[in-house]
């Protein structure tokens, strides 16, 4: 394997990461500090019980292979490369919090400082008397230090820490907040943010909290409740250290004792305090490791030499590869000195320090026949260095003939050179193979193997070339963009919008859960659905749910539901794929039912694999006492609404969606109640899970004046379009507007409503057809719930409309398996035959009291309503394709 190949795998790894951001985010992020100094009762969730001060240290560091910086090439060097390394270095410092009295009893000052150099920002907010749900409000302007910025999203203020100096002359960073005890603030909450790294320094995974007045809490479990303990005793620093060492079970005790020790205080009387918290920040220091391989002409052995400028003891954790795979194997004995065998899987060799120098080095003699030397560097128990998340992979040439000429070229062509050597190696191998005995059949297999490896090589090379060229594309070709081309990218680039030719089947109704074997039942119908012309099926929500229909999910990773087991689901999805139907999963992301109660008896602590606490719940729904931020959308009041602004929530949800894609094989999503959160988060989810097709349910009421539905529903469709826009157009939305207008038009003979003021369809489909997912009924509006049922007996007119019009039509299960089936089948086949797609062009021909007629893409003509319409014979001749009660559809011939 060549150096190029190694780098390629790096590309792979990077790419994979983007699918599930959780992985590397973890390795980079400065670990949160876990200190205890909160004054809140400590009987909260189980997660609070561990007090180990240690931050996660297992950092995986990545190096980028910088081939250009290769060392001097000697005559028999077959490989030489310097990799740069990022070594984590911990810097310890302290955060100080000081509350001091100002000029009088009422004016106080909170000073937060940090001893580590850096661009520190205090991200803070206050709690007012009477705030129930929210912990964070913006402080009054007079409290904000100079340079503060209001952060709109989560109602916080960001104030920079200014540099100042201590008596010892060390630089110190601090910010002062002045406040008056009269302005009804009960607490100041904050976290410290390192602007350079973007890391947050929290306090035991939560905000720092400085209570300013009596803290009332109604948790009867805490001794001394209702007793003022808003004052931090001077000895608090000590106490906090004590708490840090204590075990979870003892917490309450300690706290109680602390409280009893605290002198009794009057309400709203503050006492100054000072305390320090250790802070550990990790920075990355550049180092490098150089690996060179030379070939010994006499013994035909490879001599591999590793040198690094990493300080301290450096252990090379290594193995060899014997074939083109990447399996670690142990080489033959003898091993280099200072080498131990690690669990019979790898060798660990301590690099020798160079005398007087800062470098460590080691050499390894390797037998012929090995394809590669693989290793990672270990600095101490917890710190490993590898090559951008992968083992260092040093290819060893097994060819005997090495072209001397390669060594003389300049270092600039280094990559190419080593790879040339490799190519030549392969070619020589092939030559040898071939020239040995070309006619001998037994050789064939060997040749095939060689071919196989060439193929892989070609693949990798092409992929590498592609990745480089692609990144450079924008430098030209921007000029020639014809109109046709403009349209295309929107199809391709945006994930989640399908091909444009989808016909969706809603594969369940409100009763589907009752049999307990819905997946099996649908399994039988897959072929039929396919033959009817459906290309996408929307399945019910698959997760464990408090309500049998699935819309009150609890443990997202438990996919055994009232519809069937996870295995039945998988087999159903497989079945649909066999018959050429894509499968949408119904993802309920807005809310989630909790597993446990919090200390107040409120159900807001989650269990299962995603064991979030109340930070995952939005703050502005008083029913659930969330400690997250305010909701970015409307609240669904029956269950805790998830706070999508929390990064850990999004990370977990993205992982979950990716997992569903992989594990179940879903091709896309139907997103439930997307009114509940900002569309931008949906974009995040779509980008991460890369569905083929996605549609959101943005259902709110149409506009009415005096009980009469407005003709102009622009405001309504605008809200839906706004949502799609917020998702960056990466998902479609159900066209609720069209359904609503069809209701009025059909029920009251107001077919004129079907043309908007510009003569276009009045629903979302008239504005953004490629993102409009049209439907006339679903499990909520119809079925046994009937929240907003389509006018009875007129369903086929509705379908004649949506199945001939642009947008992506959805047909409801109940209608498919009813007397309408043959009519629906004809309509779908007209659509398919004429290649009507989500961007087809509609020309409204008639929109009158009792008839609406339109011609789509000049290929299909349709009318609904009892009134008369026949398409004119012009350039096209029209023949009747299908008809039913009050509708007719023609095709151009």
């Amino acid at each position, binding site marked *: 394997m060549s150096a190029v190949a190694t780098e390629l795998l790096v590309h792979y790894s990077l790419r994979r990461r983007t699918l599930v951001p959780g992985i590397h985010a973890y390795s980079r992020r400065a670990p949160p500090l876990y200190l205890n100094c909160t004054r809140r009762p400590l009987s909260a969730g189980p997660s609070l019980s561990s007090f180990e001060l*240690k931050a*996660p240290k*297992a950092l995986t560091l990545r190096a980028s292979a910088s081939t250009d910086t290769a060392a001097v090439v000697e005559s028999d060097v077959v490989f030489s490369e310097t990799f740069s390394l990022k070594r984590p270095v911990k810097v310890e410092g302290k955060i100080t919090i000081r509350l001091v009295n100002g000029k009088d009893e009422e004016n106080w000052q909170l000073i937060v400082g940090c001893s580590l150099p850096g661009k520190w920002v205090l991200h803070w907010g206050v709690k007012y008397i009477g705030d129930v749900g929210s912990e964070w409000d913006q402080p009054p302007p007079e409290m904000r230090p100079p340079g503060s910025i209001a952060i709109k999203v989560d109602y916080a203020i960001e104030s920079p820490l200014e540099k100042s100096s201590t008596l010892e002359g060390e630089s110190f960073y601090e910010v002062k907040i002045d406040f008056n005890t009269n302005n009804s603030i009960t607490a100041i909450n904050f976290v410290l943010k390192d602007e350079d790294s973007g890391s947050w320094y929290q306090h035991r995974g939560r905000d720092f909290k400085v209570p300013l007045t009596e803290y009332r809490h109604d948790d009867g479990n805490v001794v001394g409740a209702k007793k003022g303990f808003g004052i931090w005793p001077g000895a608090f620093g000590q106490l906090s250290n004590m708490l840090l060492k204590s075990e979870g079970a003892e917490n309450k005790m300690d706290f109680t004792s602390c409280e009893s020790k605290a002198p009794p205080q009057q309400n709203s009387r503050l006492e100054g305090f000072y305390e320090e918290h250790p802070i550990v920040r990790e920075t990355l220091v550049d180092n490098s490791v150089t690996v060179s391989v030379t070939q010994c002409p006499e013994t035909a052995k490879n001599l591999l030499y590793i040198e690094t400028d990493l300080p301290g003891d450096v252990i090379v954790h290594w193995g060899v590869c014997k074939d083109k795979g990447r399996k670690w194997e142990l080489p033959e004995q003898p091993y280099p000195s200072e080498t131990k065998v690690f669990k019979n899987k790898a060798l660990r060799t301590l690099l020798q320090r160079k005398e007087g120098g800062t470098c460590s080095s080691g050499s390894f003699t390797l037998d012929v026949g090995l394809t590669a030397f693989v290793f990672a560097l270990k600095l101490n128990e917890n710190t490993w260095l590898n090559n951008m998340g992968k083992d260092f992979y040093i290819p060893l040439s097994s060819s005997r003939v090495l072209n001397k000429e390669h060594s003389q070229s300049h270092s600039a062509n280094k990559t190419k050179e080593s790879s040339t050597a490799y190519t030549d190696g392969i070619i020589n191998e092939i*030559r040898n193979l071939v020239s040995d005995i070309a006619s001998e059949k037994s050789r064939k297999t060997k040749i095939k193997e060689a071919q196989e490896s060439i193929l892989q*090589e070609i693949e990798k090379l092409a992929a590498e070339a*592609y990745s*480089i060229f692609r990144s450079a594309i924008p430098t*030209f070709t921007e000029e020639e963009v014809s109109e046709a081309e403009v349209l295309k990218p929107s199809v391709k680039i945006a994930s989640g919008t399908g091909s444009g030719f989808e016909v969706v089947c809603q594969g369940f109704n409100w009763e589907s859960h009752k049999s307990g074997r819905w997946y099996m039942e649908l399994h039988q119908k897959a072929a039929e659905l396919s033959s009817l012309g459906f290309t996408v099926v929307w399945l019910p929500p698959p997760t464990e749910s408090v309500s049998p229909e699935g819309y009150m999910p609890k443990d997202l990773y438990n996919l055994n539901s009232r519809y069937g087991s996870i295995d039945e689901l998988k087999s159903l999805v497989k079945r649909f794929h066999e018959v050429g139907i894509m499968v949408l999963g119904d993802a309920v992301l807005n809310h989630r039912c909790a597993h446990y109660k919090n200390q107040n008896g409120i159900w807001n602590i989650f269990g299962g694999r995603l064991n979030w606490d109340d930070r995952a719940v939005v703050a502005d729904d008083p029913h659930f006492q969330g400690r997250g931020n305010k909701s970015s959308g409307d609240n669904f009041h029956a269950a805790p609404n998830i706070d999508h602004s929390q990064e850990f929530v999004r990370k977990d949800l993205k992982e979950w969606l990716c997992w569903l894609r992989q594990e179940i094989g879903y091709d896309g999503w139907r997103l439930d109640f997307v009114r509940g959160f900002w569309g931008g988060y949906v974009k995040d989810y779509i980008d991460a899970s890369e569905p083929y097709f996605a549609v959101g349910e943005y259902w709110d009421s149409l506009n009415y004046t005096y009980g009469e539905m407005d003709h102009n529903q622009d405001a309504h469709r605008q809200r839906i379009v706004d949502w799609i826009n917020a998702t960056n157009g990466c998902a479609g939305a159900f066209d609720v507007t069209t359904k609503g207008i069809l209701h009025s038009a059909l029920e009251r003979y107001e077919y004129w409503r079907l043309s908007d003021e510009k003569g276009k369809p009045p629903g979302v489909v008239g504005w953004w057809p490629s993102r409009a997912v049209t439907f006339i009924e679903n499990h909520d509006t119809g079925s046994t719930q009937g929240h907003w049922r389509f006018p009875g007996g007129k369903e086929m007119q509705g379908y004649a409309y949506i199945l001939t019009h642009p947008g992506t039509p959805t047909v409801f299960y109940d209608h498919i398996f009813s007397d309408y089936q043959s009519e629906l089948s004809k309509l779908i086949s007209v659509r398919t035959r004429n290649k009507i797609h989500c961007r087809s062009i509609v020309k409204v021909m008639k929109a009158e009291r009792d008839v609406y007629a339109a011609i789509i893409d000049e290929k299909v003509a349709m009318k609904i309503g009892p009134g008369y319409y026949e398409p004119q014979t012009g350039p096209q001749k029209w023949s009747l394709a299908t008809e039913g009660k009050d509708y007719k559809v023609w095709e151009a011939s």
Partner: protein
Amino acid sequence: MEVSVIGSSQVNNLGRVDLRYREVGLCSFSKNLNFAKISSPKYSGLFVGQSSISWSSKYLFPLIVKASATAQTEAAVTSEKASGTRRSEVDNNLMLYVGLPLDAVSSTNTINHARAIAAGLKALKLLGVDGVELPIWWGIAEKEARGQYNWAGYLSVAEMVQKMGLKLHVSLCFHACKESRVPLPEWVSQIGESQPDIYFTDRSGQRYKDCLSLSVDDLPIFDGKTPIQVYKEFCENFKTSFSSFMGSTITGISIGLGPDGELRYPSYHKPAKSQGAGEFQCYDKNMLSHLKQHAEASGNPLWGLSGPHDAPSSKELATSSGFLKEHGGSWESQYGDFFLSWYAGQLISHGDRLLSLASSTFSDVPIAVSGKVPLMHSWYQTRSHPAELMAGIYNTVNRDGYEGIIEVFSRNSCKAILPGIDLADEDQPKETRSSPESLLEQIIFSCRKYGIEISGQNARISGSPSGFQQIKKSLTGENAVDLFTYQRMGASFFSPEHFPSFTAFVRDLRQPQLHSDDLAVEKVDSAESLPEKNVQMQAA
């Protein structure tokens, strides 16, 4: 994906820290395992990120390794004359080249995306491609001042190609390229500022500034030197600078003959939006004065005052005007013949000048010299062939305009490069009455008649297997070409949408050799560079 020891030790470490984070850690670790599933072929199509770099290996093909069967070498040798008639399928002599990116060398003479090119070259080599084509731009190599050449970037590319054991065809480009933002040398465009008549000009006075007008070929516009002399010096210097590659790595050059290197007027240089066929480009001062002299000499001084007054503009329907309308247009009149003969004759003389310049310059090195013949296929199915006429090819229903051109190629022993052999009639818009296939056939016929060797090129990167089908069709049968250059390397070339079809195409081309079942041929790298005598050795 394997779980390396690192992975597990990571987990161990994570285990040390806070309980909650351990769970996260395990989570992410198990994710690691899941990735293994993602990367299985089943998912490669679903995840864009993934699919963009992994191709299902079914597209790739077993490489052909030929044994040294000398018999085959003999069989493959066909005489030059017979080559036109005897081929019935893609023959083993077809050389397959791929064009390097237009901007392979930047204006500062460094290699753009050197690593990508290196990887690309290697991939091509392993794929069994014979060589690459490298455009050398006047505006880069002679950028600073006249006579100051800087070949550094190009030499490095040549070196890379040589190291990879590939062949190199160099295109000497005396035009500018908008696509890759290569201008003419600044000292040339400066002269153009003061003397705009060095550029081709249409009736409305619009200048085409991407190459010099053929009318200044022999005018001393560069401090007493003519463009032809400047081109000649460029070629000479190129030859000297690349002498070590000549005949070994560099097997051929093509000389730029006009816009896009093609032998034509820049009649049609805007994206095809209208139904026009272009415009006559005879309105620069020198062209007009030459036309005047010519008209006077032929006894019709009035004909020399301007170009055809009733020719369509590029915005008008090509056949709508008096001059070019299909029936009764003045193109069929005596005046029409006068003008068109002169207009096309100018172009042919220009071609002759440049081709003879090139063939004499490179006569002492064993490389083939080529020039590019345009494929003005729009309106080919009309009687008047407006697009060809305005491009300077006097080819109509009554007259074969390519004979004269090919005759010049033949006279200078040059090869003809035909772009656009991937174009199929059925893909052309009906309203332009285009027929690339018939046009190609006509040109190839002329080439065969004069015994000219043909190299094919595609007009654009093929998005679909059907494009490759068309190329293969052109490469087979009667119209077989000796060398096909696929244009061109770059992001879309290596994209997962394209590269697999390209590999499939290469496999397809080489298919006949598969029948010889693992018979492998060591490359017989004969001293002679005649392609007919070369037998491909794909893996070497």
